């Protein structure tokens, strides 16, 4: 039966409407993924040399071991936001004579087939070959690899446990606690002791210390058992998804927004869209968890590191709009027909959306400003420049390309950077967003100003130009939306057919 379920998973993927579309873009994605793996592999090969430069008193292996927990803490954070639980239309299987425990076991087993369980090995494999397999022994190499696999497996088990838990609130709380449990001792309170423990753990792996393997293994087994229990309960939630009424409390934020003049009713609608759509709401409530990381990046950024940090800083400073604007039309699902058959100004709709998410990013920045001033006052002008840049050209780009995503095709199936449902256009847009910062950095480099002030000026200037010119480009985006409307609605009909 497991084989049949695996075949179904493949059929679900290969018969999806997006499979076979945009093959050119998908080839580029595959090529870039390959480049990324080669990059990691090359980095792994040169890592011994790099580590010896930064930790001259240690061997390369010990230096890496002292960073092992930091690497896996970052891995946990990545998985927490990006790794998904493979659900495979479970509702259709529940009334059939397939025992629930078996279905839960299948989902857990399938979840191990994930790129997140492999990517770090592209880095670690060449590193351990150079530092353990050749100079020490093949046994030491395999033990280190096994140890690292267990650490990755532990992260996998933690994330799957959190995501198989019924309800969102416990997931948020537990996820936050687990991440803080890494960050607080590791980065803030006891970094020395944290690194020493990390190094000792790596050495225990190489020395085949039974406890070093047994403890993560036991933890994985316990977490998988808990996930199995949680999943059996979560099946009820999945089966009842369409039965549960939406949260339609009157008043609150939507009520407040609807009382505002001019765009108020559209802002209220936007608020309802992001708080009543399951995926949008889930991402929206999880977003604040990223803010400590933003503060840390702003705190740690200096002249040397700021260029490398900027894409991440940009992502977080854009607030929820940076994630959502690409989907701004897809979320509408059923009411695209409503919009198409009524006299509603597309320009007003797009402007309302733009102002809504720009205001959200600025409100977030104003709330964080006291913390930024306290942690690293020198960075404030750059942070302001980047907020302007994100709410200017970046949001314009997302809205403009988002028009082409207004197909209403499976709004819940399309997910951010998910290889199962990734849209090629979306992927390219994400790359463009990150690359858009490059020209302003080059100009800043040429300016006769200190570099940080230079990039503050160029990002702020470019941002301001788009913010002030927003009436013009939102109108152009609206025209593009109207021109594409029939084409997009037709695409949706075809996907149904």
């Amino acid at each position, binding site marked *: 039966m497991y084989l*049949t379920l695996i075949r179904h998973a493949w059929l*679900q993927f290969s018969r999806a409407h997006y499979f076979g579309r945009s093959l050119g873009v998908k080839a580029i994605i595959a090529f870039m993924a390959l480049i990324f793996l080669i990059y990691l592999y090359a980095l792994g090969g040169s890592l011994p040399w790099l580590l010896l430069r930064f930790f001259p008193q240690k061997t390369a292996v010990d230096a890496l071991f002292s960073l092992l927990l930091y690497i896996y803490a970052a891995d946990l954070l990545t998985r927490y936001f990006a790794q998904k639980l493979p659900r495979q*239309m479970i509702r*259709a299987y*529940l*009334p059939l*004579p397939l025992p629930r425990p078996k279905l839960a076991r299948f989902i857990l087993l399938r979840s191990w087939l994930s790129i997140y369980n492999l990517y770090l090995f592209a880095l670690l494999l060449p590193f351990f070959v150079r530092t353990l397999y050749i100079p020490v022994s093949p046994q030491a190499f395999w033990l280190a690899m096994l140890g690292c696999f267990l650490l990755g497996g532990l992260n996998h088990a933690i994330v799957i446990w959190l995501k198989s838990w019924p309800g969102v609130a416990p997931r948020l709380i537990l996820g936050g606690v687990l991440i803080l449990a890494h960050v607080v001792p590791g980065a803030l309170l006891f970094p020395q002791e944290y690194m020493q423990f990390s190094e000792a753990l790596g050495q225990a792996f190489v020395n085949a210390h039974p406890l070093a393997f047994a403890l993560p293994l036991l933890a994985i087994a316990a977490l998988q058992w808990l996930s199995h229990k949680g999943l059996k309960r979560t099946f*009820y939630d999945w089966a*009842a998804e369409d*039965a549960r009424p939406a949260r339609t409390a009157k008043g609150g934020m939507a009520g407040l927004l609807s009382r505002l003049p001019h765009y108020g009713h559209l802002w209220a609608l936007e608020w309802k869209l992001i708080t009543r759509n399951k995926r949008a709401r889930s991402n929206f409530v999880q977003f604040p968890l990223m803010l400590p990381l933003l503060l840390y990046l702003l705190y740690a950024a200096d002249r040397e590191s700021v260029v490398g940090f900027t894409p991440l800083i940009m992502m977080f400073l854009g607030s929820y709009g940076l994630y959502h604007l690409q989907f701004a039309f897809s979320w509408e699902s059923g009411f695209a027909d409503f919009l198409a058959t009524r006299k509603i100004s597309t320009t007003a709709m797009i402007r309302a959306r733009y102002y809504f998410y720009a205001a959200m990013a600025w409100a977030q920045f104003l709330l964080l400003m006291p913390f930024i001033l306290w942690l690293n006052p020198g960075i404030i002008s750059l942070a302001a420049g980047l907020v302007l840049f994100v709410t200017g050209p970046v949001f314009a780009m997302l809205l403009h390309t988002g028009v082409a995503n207004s197909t209403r095709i499976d709004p819940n199936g399309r997910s951010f950077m998910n290889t199962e449902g990734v849209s090629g256009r979306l992927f390219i847009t994400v790359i463009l967003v990150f690359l858009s910062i490059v020209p302003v950095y080059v100009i800043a480099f040429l300016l006769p100003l200190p570099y940080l002030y230079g990039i503050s000026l160029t990002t702020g200037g470019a941002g301001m130009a788009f913010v002030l010119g927003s009436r013009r480009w939102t109108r152009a985006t609206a025209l593009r939306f109207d021109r594409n409307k029939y084409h997009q609605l037709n695409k949706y009909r075809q996907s149904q057919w």
Partner: protein
Amino acid sequence: MVSIRITGLKKNYGEQTALHIDSLQIAPGSLTGIVGNNGAGKTTMFRLLLDLIRPEQGLAEIEGKAVKGSDHWKTFTGSYLDEGFLIGFLSPVEYFHFAARLHGISEKETEERLEAYAGFLGDEAGGSSKTIRQLSSGNKQKVGIVAALMIRPALLVLDEPFNYLDPSSQIMIRQMLQQINHNKGTTMLVSSHNLNYLTDICDRIVLLEKGKIVKDLTPPGDDLGEVEAYFRLQAGKPLP
């Protein structure tokens, strides 16, 4: 033949009570129609009976065993609630074979059984290479109903089976249900908005309103006109 017993079953969504049935017994081999306006709790009752949602309190039992957290009833129960319960990326034939296999029916036997439903399924739902997702709502409905019937269940649960079907198919499904119920003694629970269809074929009608049973009629002893009178009363005055 299979019996059903519901005792003190309650389901809430937020502060709203979707279903609250103190007691309901379905006799083995009966064909029971569940009627009620939108939001009366018909689908919620079926979901609870099929262990798809958890009740706040109470018990639903099939053959004397609680359905909650159990799988025993799945081997002899055929059900179709809505298209969300179909595996959309399979073709109808693949889906029939998958469901049949889970019930221990051989491929050859499945083919033979499907022959009997070929007329009802028609060309598109019966033999095309389209996936279920690509079928019209009516054809999806046919696939769901046939998948539930072809396993020859001892208990059949169908939610609004006449929806989306063309008039000929509605007549066919009505005849099939009656025939199977009489010949095989299958216990059936069927909900519908179409009163005429249910009153014609059912030997018991249960009327739900806001999650509660308000009438439980057994024709010919009870006058089914009561049900129609109830809906007329609910309709109130015509709109201007």
